[in-house]
């Protein structure tokens, strides 16, 4: 029997790291997937001097891939600066999990978007960006455009 999932995916799925809602987060992001209707929330505690992510947690309403990528992304982001964390890609997350089924690539994109959205929220609250871009359905679909064909994967 081979699951479509790697050992790492199953491990993070069974024992997700850094889970749960955070009290008084410094930054908070909530993203939804237009492809399958799932959601990811990411919460951050940021050191205002170094801009290092000192604490991070997530919530997921999604499939095993989604839970696992969100979990691994919190591990990847913790201890990084906001600028470094912004650069984490869904591919890095998927690689850290030993790979994801093609049809599930969008789940990892969703998790990455959750993290970026939390960072953006922090930056907006701290006057680090001028333009505030509302997270509308169109914005989400735009970001997810390259993964919107779930049958073909990426």
């Amino acid at each position, binding site marked *: *029997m081979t699951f479509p999932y790697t050992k790492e995916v199953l491990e993070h799925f069974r024992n997700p790291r850094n889970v749960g809602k955070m009290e008084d987060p410094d930054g908070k992001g909530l993203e939804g997937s237009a492809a*399958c209707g*799932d959601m990811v929330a990411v919460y951050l505690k940021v050191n205002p001097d170094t801009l290092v992510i000192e604490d991070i947690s997530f919530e*997921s*309403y999604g499939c095993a891939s989604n839970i696992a990528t969100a979990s691994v992304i919190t591990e990847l982001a913790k201890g990084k600066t906001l600028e470094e964390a912004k650069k984490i890609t869904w591919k890095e997350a998927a690689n850290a999990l030993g790979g994801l089924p093609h049809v599930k690539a969008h789940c990892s994109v969703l998790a990455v978007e959750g993290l970026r959205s939390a960072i953006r929220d922090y930056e907006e609250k701290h006057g680090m960006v001028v333009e505030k871009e509302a997270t509308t359905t169109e914005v989400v679909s735009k970001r997810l455009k390259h993964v919107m064909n779930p*049958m073909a994967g990426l």
Partner: protein
Amino acid sequence: MFNETIYLDNAASTRLDEEVLEAMKPYFFDAYAVATSEFGYSMGIDAKEGLERSRKVIASRLGAQAGEIVFTSGSTESSNMAIKGVLSALKGKKDDHLIVSRLEDFPVLNTAKKLDKQGYKVDFINVDGEGVLDLDMFSDAITSQTALVSIQQANQEIGTLQDLKAISDICHDKNVLLHTDATHSFTRVPLDVSKLPVDLVTMSAHTIHGPRGIGALYIREGTPIDKWMDGGFQESDRRAGVENIPAAVGFAKAVELVTPEENERLAAMRDRVIERAMADIPHVTLNGSATSRLPQNSNMTFHYVEGESITLHLDMMGFAVSTGSACFSRSLEASHVILGIGGDHERAHGSLRFSFGRFNTIEDSDAIIDALKDVVTNLRAISPLAEDN
């Protein structure tokens, strides 16, 4: 070779019954000839007898004549043949109008959608919140140009039974042919074509512990229908292809093995799983009808959590169940059935179907809820939707 599982996905397919295989063996190893030539040799006649005996068993369970049963390769083929065969036969006689319900399974639904694209007129009739057909909308949709109606007897996901008596009476009154997909209901709930004016019925073996690769189509005598599977003259020249006699014999045996007592046993498992889920787990919604449903089917939504995550956890604990979640399906589309009864994506996402079969026990109903309690609690703990839990 494989691990022990508590299998609660009998609506998808079932374990073969050993008795069914035993019934098939003489046709694998002794009377393995083809049955086409009655002027042929003895082994072919033995084979043919096996085939015709099986046809009778299936016919009589349905209140039909043996000659009204055509064996096919399965439900999918039966429904393709029924719809395409009747529309082809009526071409030019009635207008190309087809009526189906929104909850039909893919063989009927996707055949209807394809025909729609090809220029047929197709109406998809709504159902209410329990999955029951809107009889007024249905009745109004029928016109003098309607060639065929196809409404399932029972739903594959939420188990809701349609009022086939009312539906067939309407069709009969309006002089329109009626096909019903009885894939899940045949032998599980009554259907007697000598009493109800249903013209075509799709049946399947592998949903009742019979073999895969065999199904049947009841065709009321006199129903206009063209051949769809072209080739040889088998099945009284209605369906070509070597007769799958071992499987037909297995199908008949599978039918004989379904008893009213078994159906009561299944209903008890169904009721227990619903009752226990409602009692032990908060935020649960029953999908489908509380009163008019298949004995072997239950379907509930566990809110704020996603079905694929649940099924994967359950799998690791040794349970096999399925979900209407978009994430579970290859196409990433949420169940059209849950959406069809007015549910939103969230309701489809967290829906689980528990379907029972001969090899389940009432303990399985308890075991799955015991397991599910923890799984749902843990997943809700990480769900952004489940704020108030």
